[in-house]
Every structure is written in C-alpha cells, then in structure tokens.
C-alpha cells in the first residue's frame, strides 16, 4: 500500500508502484478532473501540483510521490490563487471544448503562486507545456492577467 497526501487528505492505494499518478487519481480515486491527453508529458492535460509545482501526472509513478503534497483541480480553489484563476477563467469564457482546461488552470495557478505579475513572456514560458487544440490561448493570457490583478 502506498500512502498519498491528496488535497489535504491521507489516502492509501494498492496500485502497482509503477502506475502513473494520473491513473490512480482517475481510475482508483474517481477524481476525473485531471485528464489523459498524450501519456508522454507532452500536452499538460494531466497537470497537478506536487509540493506546489506544476507536474505532469501521466508519467509520474505513484510510488515517487508517496508522502508529497498533491493538489488537483478538485481542490485547487482552496488556495487564493487557484480560486482567482478559476473565476478569471469563467469571466473570460476561456474554455471551449474544455478538456485541457484543468491542466491549464493548474499550470496558471502554479505560475501565479511564484510570479504575482507575469508578463506575456512569463506566461508563454509557464504555459507552453499545456496544449489547447481549441487554441484558447488569447483568453488564457487575458485570464491569467485578470487573476493576477484580482490577487494584487
């Protein structure tokens, strides 16, 4: 059994140690907000926070994160930055198909947690790992700035 610290709760899983965290979240814990998009850490749809850092969960063996602080889209709104980002996403009508947006929000929240006033260049660097096939990027930029403003 592996003990996990997910969204402030201690949970045990009997998943094989090599199981990526994404599939423990989705298939074993029923937390389907984090998405499967590529399985190779190329698209960012599976992004969660590990000890506050945006991390791709689709290639991360669950055994590697035992005891670390895991935050997912399901509880990102517990932080001021996460709440501000979600509200900005809604205000800017960012999501279209919406499938990538949990990952986008996790990356944006991690960015704002370390950089209170990101520039366009900062946003490009922090968000370039998150693909959106609906190309909502113009609104993602606007929403991150809106969230930054609301947190200031």
């Amino acid at each position, binding site marked *: 059994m592996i003990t996990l610290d997910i969204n402030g709760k201690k949970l045990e899983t009997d998943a094989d140690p090599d199981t990526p965290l994404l*599939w423990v979240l989705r298939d074993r814990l*029923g937390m389907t907000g984090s998405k499967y998009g590529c399985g190779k850490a190329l698209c960012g749809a599976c992004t969660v926070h590990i000890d506050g850092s945006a991390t791709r969960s689709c290639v991360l063996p669950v055994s590697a994160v035992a005891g670390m602080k895991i935050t997912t889209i399901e509880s990102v709104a517990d932080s001021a930055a996460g709440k501000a980002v979600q509200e900005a996403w809604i205000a800017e009508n960012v999501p279209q*198909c*919406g*499938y990538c947006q949990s990952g986008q929000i996790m990356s944006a929240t991690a960015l704002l947690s370390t950089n209170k006033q990101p520039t366009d260049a900062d946003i490009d660097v922090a968000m370039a790992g998150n693909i*959106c*096939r609906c*190309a*909502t990027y*113009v609104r993602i930029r606007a929403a991150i700035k809106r969230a930054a403003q609301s947190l200031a």
Partner: protein
Amino acid sequence: MSTSADETLIRASRRDVLKAGAALTIAFWLPQRGAVAAEAPTSAVLEPNAFVRIGDDDTVTVISKHVEMGQGSYTGLATLIAEELDADWKQVSVEGAPADAKLYNNLSFGPMQGTGGSSSLSNSFDQLRSAGATARALLVSAAAQRWSVPANEIAITAGVVSHSKSNRTARFGELVGDAVKLPVPTDAKPKDPANYTLIGKNLTRVDSRAKSTGTATFTQDIQLPGMLTALVLHPPRFGAKVKSFDASKAQAIKGVKTVVAFETPVRAGIAVLATDFWTARKARDLVTVQWDESKAFRSGSAELLARYRELAAKPGASAKRVGDADAALVSAAQVVEATYEFPYLAHASMEPLNCVVRVGAQECEIWNGDQFQTPDQLAVAKLLGIPPAAVKINMLYAGGSFGRRANPQSDYVVEAVAIAKAANVREPVKMVWTREEDMRAGYYRPLYVHTLKAGLDKDGRLIAWQHRIAGQSILSGSPFAAPGPIDPTSVEGASTLPYQIPNLSVELHTTHNPVPVQWWRSVGSTHTAFSTECFLDEIARLTHKDPYALRRELLADKHPRHRAVLDLVAEKSGWRNPRSQDQIWGLALHESFNSVVAQVAQLQRTSDGLKLTKVICAVDCGLAVNPNIVAMQMESGIGYGLGAALSGAITIRDGQVEQGNFDDYPVLRINQMPAIEVHIVPASGKPTGVGEPGTPVIAPALANALALANGKPVRTLPLSSQAITLA
C-alpha cells in the same frame, strides 16, 4: 446558469482502495431524468415540446440536439429559447438530447441527427425560437387565467411574469402547475428582433464553470459499476488483418478480464479488457500479434504526391466551367502556373477517441460525446442485429472533434461495440485509444495536389483561371456520397470562387487508396482557400497590384458580403495606410458554411526572424447570436489553422504513419499564438456558420505575408517542410 451534465453524477464510496473513513468518493454516472423522476415523482414539469422543460422549481432546461464540442452550441441554442421565453439567463441549464432522428434531426442534414457543417445555430434558429415562444405562450395563458386578465396585458421580464395594472407577479415555477393543463398552442410567434434582450449579447457560456472546475463530464470520465476498460492494438498498416496473436502473458496480469481479436467494416485489431486503463495498457504491451498484410497499403506520401502531381497536370472531371479557360489560356498574353501541395492532417483533439458501450441481449447503451447520433445508431444496430431504436445514446461533452467524431462509418463507435461483442461481456466497456492510436488510425484530411494556371491579357487583366485538384474523396463510399464524378467537398471553395473571371475551369481527379480520410475543420476549404488565395496574390505581385485592390476589382459588383468583409478588414487593419518595412502583411478572403471571413496576418521583422504578431479578422456570419462566442470561434479557427500551416503533417512511409504523438505531430502552443482582433459585420436575419469559417483563411493570409517577406511564394504546407519558421 450551469449545465446539468455535472449533476448527473452520484457519488458512491469505493472503500476497497481507500482507508476506512476517507472522505474521497468515486463518481458514477446515472441518467439524470431517471434519477430525478425516482426522487421527486410528483413535481410538475412543463414540457411543451422536445426542446424545453420548465420545472416548478423555476428551472429552465434546454435540451440540445447538438453535441457541445467546444463551439458554444449549448450556449447558443439555450440563448434562442431563453430569448423567446424571456427567461433569466441564470435559471437556464442545458442537457444533451437523446438519439432520436424524428425529434432531433439536423434540419440542414435532412432526416438524421448530427452536428457538423457549422450548422447548429443556423438549422435550429427558427425551430428553437418557436419552441421557446410556445412555452412562453403557455406561461402567459396560465397567468392570464389565474389573474383573470387579458393575456395581452401580461409581460415577462427576466423570468418574472407580471401584470402591471394589478401589480401581480409570478415566477415560472408558480405557473407550471396550471400551464401543464393547457393545450399547447401551435401558432406562437417568435419575437420581433427589435425586442431581443439576450440574442446579440455576450452571455456567459453555460459550460464555463463546469469546465473551469474539472466537473464537466467527458466520455473519458465515465465510471459505471463493473465497467471494463479496453485498450486496443491496431495494425501498423491500413487494411491489415489479424493472422494470429499470443495473449498468454497479458492474460496472466491481475485485473485483465480477456483479450480478443475484433474486426469491423473499417479496421481489425486486438483489444485488452481490464479493470482499469493502466492494467489494460501494461497487458496490451505484452500481446504479440502476427498481422496478415497481404492486402495492406504499402505505399506512402512521397509516392502519392508524385502521382497526384502528374494527375494535376492533366484535365480532370469538370466541377465548374465558365467560358472556355483552355482557349483563353492559349490566347493569353501571359500564363502563370503554380502547384500547391497539402499533407494528410490528423484532427488530434485533446480527448483521444473513446466510447463507452454496454451491449445487452436486445439493446445497446452508449455514453459518448456523440456527433453523429443517427449514423452511429444505425451502424451499431446493424452490427448487433437489433433495431436502431434499441441503441440508446447518452450525450456527453466531447473534448474537441473538429469533424473526427462525425465519422460516416461510425468507425470508433462500432469498434467499441465490436470489442464488447467479441469479448461477450455484459459489463459496460470503455474503449480508450491512446494518443498514438488516435493519431495512427486514419481518417485524415486528405493529401492533395492543386495545379493552377492563370491567363493574363496584355494589360495584365485576369482572363483565364484553370484549377486542377487531385486527391481522395471524403464522401466516396459513404452514405453521403454524391452522384457523379465530383465530390463537392473536394472542390468547394474552388468551384465557388467569388471572383469574376470570364473563363474559368475547376477540374477534379479523385484518387483511391486505403488511407481513411474524413472532413477536418472547414473540409474542402482547408486546401482550396490556400491555393486560390495564394495564387491570386502571386498574380497581384506579378502585375504589381495591391492584394486588397485586386480582390476588390475581381469581386466587381457581385458578392456584397465579401466586399463588406474585405472592406472591414482593410479598414480595421489600416491596410491602406503606409507601414514600415519591418511590417509585412498578408491578406486572404474566403467563404465557407455561408459565412465570409477575411484576415490580415501581420508579420514583423525582428532580430529573431519573422514574428506573426497579430491577426485582424473580419467576419460576416449573419446574425451574431453571441458576439463573444463568434470571436472565440474566429480565434479558435485561426489557432487551429495556424498550427496546421506551421507544422501539421501526417506522413506515410511504406504504409506506416510516421507520427504518433505531439512530439512528432506538433500543434500550436501558446508562445506561437498571435494577438487576434475580431470584427463582426453587423447583420440581421439568421445566423450562419462560425465553428469552421475562421480556420481556412489564416494559412493563405500568412503565406501571402511570407511570400512578400521572403521574396518567394509558399506553395507547400506545412511551412516546417519548407524550413520556414517564425520567431
């Protein structure tokens, strides 16, 4: 406002994987209406037609016959009902309609239910306004009766029914009990557009909150009791079959239920069914398969291109003829020729293809972000030997599609059912393709070669235009095939060229090979907009004409919508103002799905190279029901088209697709996204398409700017294949 999709989840604890007492739960999907009925059988619901329900709790539920795959259809359709009802937007939610071709057919498709062709709003516009007006009339009658006042003295504003003379008001819910007893009127008239209060406003999308909180339910998210996850192995080459396979190692893995071979009309393969994705994935990688490749496709993109180039040099089947282009080319003072080449393209939606099915003895239940309900029902019914009505489809959000989930052969839905049938399981089966299966299983935008010739007279005037296209037909062999040698989707945009040229010929060579092809956001326009608009700019450069002025001249006094869009993009971009040498702009104009779009791509020369800083977009899409969503769709189309133009290419070598994931099939990322300005031509009447028409215009606009910047035309996509990169 919210969607009710997220309310269809009930929560049941799964203690086997959790420490006792842990608060986390696993969500199971249950059909919403069944759940509601079981809990509150006595509540009154006003349901005057198939598109709207009003509860005595004041909720207005709009039933969407179209899938929500990103384009805002749920919001747009709900706006039409809410407008006619004079509802408060906050009381409105949307749920996906069941599969029922009689009630929910796409009026622009005929007797079938499905979403596509940028038609969701346009085909529903009259239908849903009437549905809303009917519901409104019932509420008004119920209030008139209750208050004993004339119906024409009753007003509804933002969900409140009122009679001002007697100072009485009622919420919708209070009137539902009376309204359900009244006969449903057949003559309720939709509003005068002058009185619109919601149409034309930037209402918040109904799905924004669920999709910003991770609670929106996609096919990938479905969990059902006992459900198995199926991972598949497809053959490495199109047309191969399974000769034999060894699954002994896979079967030994704990959690694996069974490993089966399956075959559908379009594809064969192996499926591993297990308790969950990762178990199935690990087991799948232990299966060894001997493929029968005796009938498999062994050619490749290079061979196809060589053959298509030869074809495009020869006369083809006539798709459009005006005057005599051949004769005019002979008599022309100057002839210009160019050949354009386009690769196969994958849709590569964020949600890899998947489908959840439960195959029963005499029925089948499907959970899917389903874009093609009627063809999917028919195909599944045929496979199982049951009536189409016994195939129930539960509608979910689709994580993108761009055409892929509207497959004329229902390939992925049928595959999921074929797997469940081959495995002979009664449990629900969630078939999940990995990204690699999604990218390699075919159904691409076809590879095309276009050769264009133009004849100019001694004054440089365009007197002849010959356009020859070679490539596979999307519709051929499908239930949608047109009679005759011309697949309209191969030539649309070329055969509908708006420019007034006295001698014009559009010809088609339809080729055949086993690579599966399909519509891809904006279909024929994905290639015809590029070849026609880039070739026109080649003529402009040759004759030293301004690209805007040449288009304006060739539109002559025809096509007022094109002229207005062209003028708007010129005005908003400042096209006619002088600009610095470092500012290099390209222009393109194209009509698709009854909407006209023009874009100016603005390149800036920087120390790092050419940078696409901004795109100015003008669109005439008829009545803009939600201008913000129109802008979103233009932005989205530009981004989707730009990614393909920069680096999109599926290439085939010796029958094998060379790409498999986002590392070798790069798609647009945020650092490549330009700023975008969208300007909408004010229009009344009905809405026309917005989901697709923004897509095909960016590639030619960008290529026309690059041709100026580099002094060399762009005739082959993607740009990466020509070693052209942007800063």
